[in-house]
Every structure is written in structure tokens, then in C-alpha cells.
């Protein structure tokens, strides 16, 4: 009977969430039945005209009741909090070996790109049983990446990155929905997650014409946007060397230290005057408005690749390959909802033109 009332479980997280949900449902059902049962029983027993005992309660009794159920409620609620919170804490950090997928949301489509360079629109293919880490951002308004079967949801925020991860436990095709209201076609901003057996996934992957991976695009940008002029090894300008930077503690002018992570790289590109590395002049111009979110992601991936050794399938420095995914999104993303349009570039609604 529960089959139709519960969503499909397709991730490692799903059974844990459902367990808390069902436990909480049982406790709630008990309390509702208790309250409704007492209300109905009292209503019948003590209805006007019945011959029930209506003497006053001793004060002591009412005080004991009051303190008793306040304490019991508090205990039950704190217990549920602890139970739910412990599950949340365990699920917070993604495993180190997770496959990394960058997701860019825009009105009204999902663009995904794996670290191995495969780009998809409104689709994401992943192997079953492997942890997948999502790095989300948005090009316009706030969206939310929601896969009900995985019990997974995370907002995609413009100008910021958020992260989430999952490990699929079941092959199949699952809804990818947008749950943060994002304008006209919010309801049609749909995609699907295709979970495949590892060997099917490998076959699918090899059938994809290889695109540039993020780090390679970042490497190209690094030169094209002039970053290399100062930051390349042997440059005449005195700028911090970026090789081996990723994940390291950086000493800032003023004594603070920060860890060179995605947020730090992003801030350094957009607000270079804010956290200046000790021993360097604040001479770098801001790139705010000159680089898109996607481009910043690519540059970050490049810097990361410089530091930690290439995590992607190919080594840096090989000639970049052209980036084409055949078939077009229409062929690859059949609409999940009747009448849902799947277009490569939907007409954007904004930004609004203001007088």
C-alpha cells in the first residue's frame, strides 16, 4: 500500500530520509490520534446532559499534568531533532573520489558539464554506485536542482556556488525538476538523470565526442583574457604564481591566512583588492562583469588542475579538441511533461528593460 504513497528510492540518502519521515509520521499519527481521540471521547462523555462526574480537579494534579506533558513534548521533539540532525551531518561532506559535475541553471534549462568534458542539456548521465558531486550556479535567477528519487535538492544561486552530492543506487531515468520559482516557464524547466551500469556508462561516455574539459577551457581563457601576462611563470610582472596554489593556505597582507578554494579564487578574480597576498602589490584589475560564471568556473578548474595534478581524463597541454555534442538537445532530452518545449536556447525573459 505504501508503494504508491512513497517516491522511488534511488540514492543512498533516500532510505535514510524515508526512515526519518516514516518515524516522524508514526509519532505524528500517534499524537494526532491521541488528541483527536481525547477530544472525541471527552465530547461524548462530557456532553451537555450526560451524567458524568464534573467535580473540580485538585490543583496539584493539573500542575503535575502540565509539567509532565511539557517535559515529554520537549523530550520527544529534541529526540527527533537529534535523530534528523545526525543523519544530516553524516550526509554533508561529499566523498573525496566523487565525480565532479558542474551545473549551470538558466531560465529555463539545466546545463551540466562533467569534469571529463561531456556537456549535456537538461540531462545528466551518471554511473550507478559512484558518488557524484554537483557544483551549482545560476546565470540569472535562483533555481533549485531537485531530484525527488534521490531526496536531493540544492539551490542554484546566481553569483555564488553551492554544492551537493549523491550516490545513485539504482539504474533508470529520474526526474530533474526546478523547485525555486524562476519565472514564466518554471514548470517546464525539467530534465532527467540517467543512471547507468558502470560498463554502460563507460560505453556511453566513449560514444560522446570528447569535448574540452573545464580545465582546458580555463587554460585557453587564461591566455585569452590576459591572466597569463602576469601570472604565468617567468612573467615580468610581480604576481603570485598559481602552480600548486589549490588547497594551500595563503598568507595575506595584514596577517590573515585563507585557503585557496573555489570561493577564494572567485573573489580574487572579481575583487582582487580585497584579499591581497602578502608581499604583492594590489595591482590586479577586477574582472567583475568581464567574465561569466561559466568562465570563472573554467578558470577555477584550470587553477585547480595546476595544483593538484589533473583529475580529468586527459593531461593538460594536449591540444584542445573541438567541443561538439551531436544530436542536439531535442533528440537527447525528450520532454517529461506533455507540451514541455525543449529548446537549446529558450528566449530569456530578462533582464527587464527599465526606463
Amino acid at each position, binding site marked *: 500500500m505504501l508503494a504508491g504513497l512513497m517516491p522511488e528510492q534511488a540514492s543512498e540518502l533516500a532510505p535514510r530520509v524515508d526512515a526519518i519521515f516514516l518515524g*516522524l509520521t508514526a509519532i505524528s499519527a500517534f499524537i494526532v490520534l491521541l488528541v483527536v481521540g481525547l477530544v472525541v471521547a471527552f465530547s461524548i462523555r462530557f456532553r451537555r446532559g450526560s451524567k458524568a462526574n464534573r467535580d473540580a480537579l485538585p490543583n496539584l494534579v493539573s500542575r503535575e499534568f502540565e509539567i509532565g506533558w511539557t517535559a515529554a513534548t520537549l523530550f520527544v521533539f529534541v529526540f527527533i531533532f537529534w535523530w534528523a540532525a545526525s543523519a544530516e551531518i553524516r550526509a554533508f561532506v561529499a566523498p573525496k573520489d566523487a565525480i565532479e559535475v558542474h551545473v549551470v541553471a538558466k531560465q529555463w534549462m539545466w546545463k551540466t558539464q562533467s569534469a571529463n568534458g561531456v556537456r549535456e542539456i537538461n540531462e545528466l548521465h551518471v554511473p550507478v554506485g559512484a558518488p557524484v558531486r554537483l557544483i551549482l550556479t545560476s546565470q540569472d535567477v535562483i533555481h533549485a536542482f531537485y531530484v525527488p528519487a534521490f531526496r536531493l535538492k540544492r539551490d542554484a544561486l546566481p553569483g555564488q556556488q553551492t554544492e551537493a552530492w549523491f550516490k545513485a543506487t539504482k539504474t533508470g531515468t529520474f526526474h530533474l525538476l526546478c523547485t525555486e520559482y524562476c519565472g514564466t516557464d518554471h514548470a517546464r524547466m525539467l530534465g532527467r538523470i540517467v543512471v547507468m551500469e558502470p560498463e554502460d556508462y563507460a560505453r556511453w561516455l566513449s560514444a560522446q565526442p570528447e569535448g574540452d574539459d573545464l580545465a582546458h577551457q580555463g587554460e585557453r581563457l587564461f591566455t585569452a583574457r590576459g591572466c597569463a601576462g602576469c601570472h604565468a611563470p617567468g612573467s615580468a610582472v610581480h604576481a603570485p604564481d598559481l602552480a600548486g596554489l589549490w588547497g594551500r593556505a595563503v598568507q595575506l597582507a595584514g596577517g590573515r591566512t585563507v585557503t585557496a578554494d573555489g570561493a577564494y579564487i572567485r573573489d580574487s578574480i572579481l575583487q582582487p583588492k580585497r584579499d591581497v597576498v602578502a608581499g604583492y602589490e594590489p595591482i590586479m584589475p577586477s574582472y567583475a562583469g568581464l567574465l561569466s560564471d561559466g568562465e570563472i568556473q573554467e578558470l577555477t578548474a584550470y587553477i585547480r588542475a595546476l595544483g593538484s595534478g589533473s583529475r580529468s581524463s586527459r593531461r593538460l597541454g594536449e591540444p584542445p579538441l573541438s567541443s561538439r555534442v551531436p544530436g542536439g538537445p531535442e533528440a537527447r532530452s525528450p520532454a517529461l511533461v506533455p507540451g514541455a518545449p525543449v529548446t537549446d536556447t529558450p528566449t530569456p525573459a530578462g533582464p527587464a528593460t527599465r526606463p
Partner: protein
Amino acid sequence: MSADVAESPTALADRGELALGLPESYLAAGHTLGSWLTATDHKRIAILYAISITLFFFIGGAAATIVRLELFTPKADVVGADTYNKLFTLHGVVMVWFFLIPSIPTTLGNFLLPLMIGARDMAFPKLNLASWYLNIAGGILTASAMLAGGIDTGWTFYVPYSTVFSNTAVSLGVLGVFVAGFSTIATGVNVIATTHTLRAPGMTWFKLPLFVWAMYTTSLIFVLATPVLAVTLLLVLAERVFGLPIFDPARGGDPILFQHLFWFYSHPAVYIMILPAMGVISEVITCFARRRIFGYSFMVYALVAISVIGFFTWGHHMFTSGMSPFAALVFSFLSFIVAVPSAIKVFNWTATLYRGQIGFESPMLYALGFVGLFTVGGLTGLFLASIPIDVHVQDTYFVVAHFHYIMVGASVSAYFAGLHFWWPKVTGRMYPETWAKFSAILMFFGFNLTFFPQFIAGYLGMPRRYHVYPPEFQVWNVLSSAGAAVLAAAYLMPLGYLTWSVFFGERARNDPWNASGLEWRTTSPPPRENFLGKPEVLAMPYNYHPEGAPPIKDRPRVPAQGSLT
């Protein structure tokens, strides 16, 4: 008792022997439109509010009806995407800002607060009238936004969609809500000042009726939280109209800042909607159970605790926005804690019934319905306070069902309970009881049929604000839409029979329910000055005794004019 000199005129009026020289009722004090629109009498202002919020209720309800009609099928066959988005925005904006928030405080609260504490009027009668005009001005601005093409942001106005991307009349609508906000601030100031300064002799803080306590704690939220909303809306206007970079991330702004500011007001606003409802229910249950409310002082502390802790739970609206796990845990914990005083109230209402002498007149039916709906709504709040479950159901129909159980199921049931309970006092007329009982029962079943399936659809993963949806969710939506039709009928019925009763209803006695509050110690409807003499309060509140129990010795007393004071 023979008619001796000490018998009060109210007692005469109770028996229908209207004594000569009784002052005429507040309703008879003037019959022109002007006499109403310039009235500073709190009772007349309450009527003005009642008329305006009823209008808003049916505007918002009409929008909801079309929304439910559209969701009958998975396809967009009634309205298109843009119209649908404007309809749910209209529904949310009107219902939240112009119906739910003002509903009980400005109508029943305005009418009853001075009567319950033995005052002649509110502390600032002209400010009270100005509040109504501000509310209407806000309503007109928002309505003109709807006429100027509508708003498609949802009632939450999330940025940067509302500031940068929406091409609709957001500025006008936001301005309307901003203006209406001042109305609630003014109402709050008025209630606080009135409660502090105008209590009758003997009306100590712990003799105040719980409805007055509820109004008082609600007003604290009005005064402390609404300015934050006002600032937030001003910032939205500044970004939209003057192009200041505040929330737009493309220019260095922070969209999450908006959410913090917005929910800092809007989560306490949920308590604005439910605290007055709790006050009404406390009055009604104790009267029809004919027992003093169980644990009066705990009921007071619970109201205060809810209003205070309610300020620290706003972050549970943002668990999916990437907030730090530590912050999320703190907000989760506080959200569980705030549920404890709510649970105490439910248990105390239930315990009040024990050893009572329960009558099932329509206000009681609404109140018992409230207890059930509020329990379900409150418990599902615990689901949303649990982070892993909230992550799954955030922005799905589970959330829609949860807050409708609290804000519509509970709050509107309480509004109807109070409306029926005090209708004889307000209008001097009785309503047809059979119709009222029927609509109370219909409302309870219609409500559950509408919103319970949404819990299931939501947990299955149906997002909110979708005009088209994956077909597997259809069965739950059909049930919900069918329930909405029942609910619409149940809401229309009181409009019909209550209006009828104003003209044709049986004349009401001063105290038709044998209730204990001070408001029943004057005529129905009350005179302009509320009481004939100066009220003096000797009794503890809720001096109800089931039949056979010792006689009532210490009812609140209103001496007749000219007698002992």
C-alpha cells in the same frame, strides 16, 4: 430577582425589557456613509475592516479557484504559464497581506479588546481609523498593480527575479504591501498602548482574557518585525526603481540577504496569523465546555514563548540555499523548540474539555475543527524543521499543505469560530444555527479533502508553482481540486446566512452563550461608550462552572449608572 434599584439595565435588556434612558447602540449612532468613514469608534472601525477583508478574501479565493481548476489536469488547458503565475501571486499577496495578517486582529481584536478590558475605546482612536485607511490605500495600490498587468513573482518577491528579471508591475505591488505594513504597525502600537493603559480597575495582567494576551503578543510582533519587512521592500524598490545594486549578484549584491531579511519578518508573520486564532479558540472552548481554561498561566507563557522564540527560526526557510551546516542545525533546533509551547496549548484545550459540560453550538464546532487542523499543521511543521526531510519537501506541495493547514485550516477556522461566537454581540442578532453547524462541518471536510492529498503529492515530489506537472501527480491534484469546490461552498455559505441575519435574524440577548467575559456584561450591540457604568473586575477570568458545581460568586461586575461604583 425582583426589579429593585440595584438591578442593572443590562439585566433588563437581557430579558428584552429595554429600560428607558439606555443609550442607543453604536450601530444607531449614525446611518450615513460619512458617519462610518469618519468613525473613530473601535467597533465601527472593526466593521469597516470586516467588510474590506471579506472583499479581499473572496478576491484571493477566486484566484485560488482558478489555480485549482488549472491543476485538475497535468496540461495547461485553463490558463497559460504567465496567467497562472500571476494568479498564484495574486492569491498569495492578497490572502497573506490583506486577509490573514489583518483578519482577527483588526476585526475581532478591534471590536473586542476595549470591551474585554473594560475600556471605552482604543488608546488612539484616530490612529485606529488611519490604520484602516492605510490598509485600504495599500490594497488599492496592490489592486492597481493587478490591473496594470499583474505581478508574477509569488508573494515572497524573491530576488533577483523580482528586482531584475520580472517585467510585471512588481514596484506597484511592493509599494502596496509597504503601505499596508504601516497599517499593521499602527494597529500594534494601538493595541499595546490600550492594553497597558486602559484596563479597568481590577483587571490585572493575570486576569486578562487569553484573547487579549494573544492580541498583545501579536502586536509585539507587529511592532518589532514589520519594520524589517518595510526596509526589505524599500530595498527591493530601490533596486527596481533607482537601479541600486543591493540584491543583484551581477553587480555585487546578495540574493540570500533578501531571504534572511524577508523571513525574519515573514516567519514571525505566521505567528501573527496563528496567535490571535489561539486566543479566539481559548475563549470559545472554555465557554462551551463550561470550565475554566486548563492551565491559564501556562497558556499565557506559551503565547509569550511562541512570539519570542518565533523570531529566531526564520532560517529554516533556507536549508537548501547552501547555508552552513552549523547555522542550519541551530535553526532546526529552535524550530523544534518553538513547537513545544504550541503543543502545550493543544493539550490544555483538550484538558479543558475534561469534566466539562460541552455544548456543540457552531462556534464550538469550528473550534474543535481548529484543534484537529492545528495539530496536523503543527506536527507537519516538525517535518520541515528536520533538515533532511525539509531538503526533500522544500518548495513542494508538502510545504503548501503544511502552511495551509496552519494559515487557512487553523487560522480561518478560528476566525469563523470567533465571528460566530461574537456575532450576536457585534450585530445584536442571532444567525441560523443549523446553517452555521452545517457549514462548519462542511468546511472541515472540504479543507481536509483539499489539502491532505497535497502532503502526499509533495512527498512524492510535486513542486509548487507549477501550472503543468508530470502526469503521475494527477490523482492527488484531482482530489485536491474536488475538495476546493467543497471548501468554496463552505466559505460562501456564512456570507449568505450571516448577511441575512443582520436584517432578519432573531434579536440576540446580551449574553446568549452565558459566557463570562466582560464584553458580555453590556448590551448587544454595545452602546457607543461600551459600558453603562465603570466596569470593575473582581473575578478571575473564565469563571465557568458546569451545572451542579458551586454557584458563581465573583463574576465581573458592571454597576448600573447611578448605583455604587
